[in-house]
């Protein structure tokens, strides 16, 4: 009775393993922030401090609005550098005190206590300095457009795209960001209003681009779709495109009319098509069709808008969208060139829209961001645009900053190398 019952080998070996396999990432893409300051960054900070001094002198002689603006941009770096210098000095002072054999034992014990705190403050100062050095994205102060389109996956993908749209709308209303739907097209022939074939959401708040920049990419969903009869889990995707919004008010006249600017479009290159009345037109026909279609001939970009009753408003919206799209394309092209240059120095993870950035898994109630490596298990909270979404987005913004920092260091190093070669 007390004898051990016979257990087959498979079962006994099964006992050795835990019943529930740990869900975990085998490989993490997270990068730890550097504790010590790379010499290249320090050199750059010092260079900026020098420039700051020069500007201050220039400003004391006479006011110059451009210089004042530059000064305002540089001052956080200079302040952070000052902090770091202070912490560094006190650390070296303490260290010399401890090395000195003539020091009082009581003082020595105090210094040892202090050493730890000073080390901490030095790390903080270094962190602050690196953050201040990372350049702010040139468009992060702008309002933005969020374009959502279903990827492969048919009806399920378009339902998920609708979910994403509602997620961002909730997020915006929770943060008091004003939104307007510029374009909303549901799948044709399907009664359910939750499906989506294309949506453009305009977030009018300032710095909206800075907030939503991290959302661009392919979002993957894994769940049993409503349309699935046999209970199988499907994987489908929706792509989210985030563009800085070009408004004439934020840009000013020069940016639109200046051929150097990204936002400049030669009106000669754009074919305007207005849905004309059928037949004779004029007094004979009373049309309510106000659709406007713009085609940018060199890039073959087509924008068509028909939502407003006013043809004039549709035209204005279409131009706005066309400008944003073309500017984004131009900028992406330029950024790709820079990235290619940097990639030769460092293996920067791809941030383009071709790879998936986040997975929403309904079975495990899990949301994982593949860039920052963050996993949260409050799926409902995320999909309703709640607090958890904030956490995820915050982590991605942190990751983006690290990316920028790496790129910055790489850029500085390659510059230095070139200098050395010249010397």
């Amino acid at each position, binding site marked *: 009775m007390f004898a051990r019952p016979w257990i087959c080998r498979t079962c006994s070996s099964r006992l050795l393993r835990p019943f529930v396999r740990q869900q975990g990432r085998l490989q993490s893409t997270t990068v730890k922030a550097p504790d010590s300051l790379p010499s290249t960054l320090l050199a750059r900070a010092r260079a900026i401090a020098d420039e700051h001094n020069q500007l201050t002198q220039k400003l004391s002689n006479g006011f110059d609005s451009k210089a004042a603006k530059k000064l305002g941009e540089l001052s956080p770096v200079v302040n952070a550098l000052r902090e770091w210098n202070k912490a560094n000095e006190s650390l070296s002072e303490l260290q010399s005190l401890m090395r000195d054999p003539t020091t009082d034992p009581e003082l020595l014990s105090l210094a040892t206590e202090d050493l730890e705190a000073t080390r901490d403050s030095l790390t903080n100062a270094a962190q602050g300095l690196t953050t201040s050095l990372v350049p702010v994205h040139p468009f992060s102060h702008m309002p933005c457009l969020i374009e959502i389109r279903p990827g492969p996956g048919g009806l399920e993908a378009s339902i998920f795209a609708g979910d994403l749209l509602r997620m961002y709308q909730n997020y915006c209303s929770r943060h008091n960001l004003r939104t307007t739907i510029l374009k909303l097209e549901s799948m*044709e*022939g*399907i*009664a359910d209003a939750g499906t989506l074939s294309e949506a453009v959401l305009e977030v009018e708040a300032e710095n909206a681009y800075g907030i939503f920049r991290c959302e661009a990419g392919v979002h993957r969903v894994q769940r049993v779709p409503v349309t699935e009869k046999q209970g199988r889990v499907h994987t489908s995707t929706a792509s989210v495109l985030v563009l800085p919004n070009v408004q004439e008010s934020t840009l000013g006249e020069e940016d639109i009319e200046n051929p150097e600017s990204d936002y400049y479009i030669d009106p000669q290159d754009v074919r*305007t098509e*207005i849905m*004309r*009345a059928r*037949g*004779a*037109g*004029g*007094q*004979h*026909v*009373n*049309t*309510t*069709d*106000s*659709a406007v279609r713009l085609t940018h001939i060199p890039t073959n970009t087509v924008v068509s808008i*028909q*939502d*407003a*009753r*006013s*043809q*004039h*408003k549709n035209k204005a919206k279409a131009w706005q969208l066309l400008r944003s799209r073309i500017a984004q394309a131009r900028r992406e092209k330029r950024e790709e060139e820079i990235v290619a240059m940097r990639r030769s120095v460092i293996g920067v993870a791809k941030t383009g829209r071709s790879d998936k950035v986040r997975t929403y898994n309904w079975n495990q109630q899990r949301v994982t961001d593949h860039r920052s490596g963050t996993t949260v298990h409050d799926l409902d909270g995320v999909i309703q645009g709640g607090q958890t979404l904030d956490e995820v987005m915050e982590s991605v913004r942190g990751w983006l900053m690290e990316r920028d920092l790496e790129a910055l260091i790489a850029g500085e190093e390659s510059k230095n190398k070139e200098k050395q070669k010249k010397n």
Partner: protein
Amino acid sequence: MPRLPTSLLRRAASENPLLPLLLRQCRDLRSAQNELRWLQEHAIERAQAQTHPSEYNGRVRIGYRTLLRDMVSQRTKGVPLQYILGTEHFGELELGVRRGVLIPRQETASVTTHLAHLLSRSRFPLPPELRILDLCTGSGCIPLLFQHEFRNSALRKNKNKDVKLKLLGVDISSTAIALANSNLQHVMKESRSLLGYPDNTGGGGDEISFLQADILPTPNSDTLSHPQNIPAPLLQSLDLLPTGHGRKWDILISNPPYISPKFFSSLTTERSVRKWEPKLALVPPKPKPAGSTVGKDTDDEQADLFYPVLLDLADRTGAKICLFEVADLAQASRVVRLVRERGTGLGRGWDRVEVWRDEPGLPSEPEEVMEREEKEKDEASIETVGRGNGRAVVCWRGAGGLWLGKETNKALD
């Protein structure tokens, strides 16, 4: 009209049961969806506007769905959407529309906008007070949009900012004049709140007013055969204007009734237009049977009834630019012939005449250029500008050509 396919109706019904009803008028799903959305927005707005139950004869508040169903059933009968919603977008303006007054058309807006832009960009100095007369004004859309576009364009280009506009719209219908005045109030209120103009007369001291008068000579007088001697009530009413100079106008614009009875009863004119919009604004009255109607197409004659009268008025008021809306290229060429028959004499004739298409601001399409070149081979060549159907005949003389930027100073010498 081709029958709507059942598959389309079924698809529409599965989306919204009201869509098949709208499809009867719209004929395609996209515009039916758009119209349903606009109607829905309007119904919700109206449902929310009723504040107190007693406003509705002591009945309970009407939900927006009931209102929407009402509106859709009206639309199904062919009532123009604009009459149901009560407004129409005309260029950048939103104007009120009312039954009994023609709904402003998009083509009129683009032609008016083009004229306003040409004038505001004029390098040649405009008179300090530019006087514009709009005949058959209807909802007042042309004077209101002209003022809006001229002022905005002048501000943007920083040109001709000191020119003051004086616009007068004339219509025979009292309903139209009442609507035009209410539109004037509305537009001025909007522009005041936008640009902060202090006075009641619009931006930069412009003045817009409307007047009820008959343009055609009274039918029972026999003055039709003496064009110099128009005793029309219009000229008399102009004399009675308090500001004086009632008979001196720089620019004459008109969108008169121009549909011939034949086109009105055929498929050329939309059913909903025929049934719901005022015939007074669409078809000119029958001309008095004059002596020699033999060999003339009386149908075309009736359609063109207004143009000789308008040209006479242009001479009487000393207008330097004329813009008349027309139905198509055929009518345009008839009006061009009328203008050319007046010769090039001083004060009476015209320097040049051209035809503007639906979108005069856009470059012509290749086939339109081809068409034009073919026409130019003929003796009666017509110059056309823009893209689309022939829409307006524009003629000018003297300084008018310089204002439009069509002629240089040298050409005048």
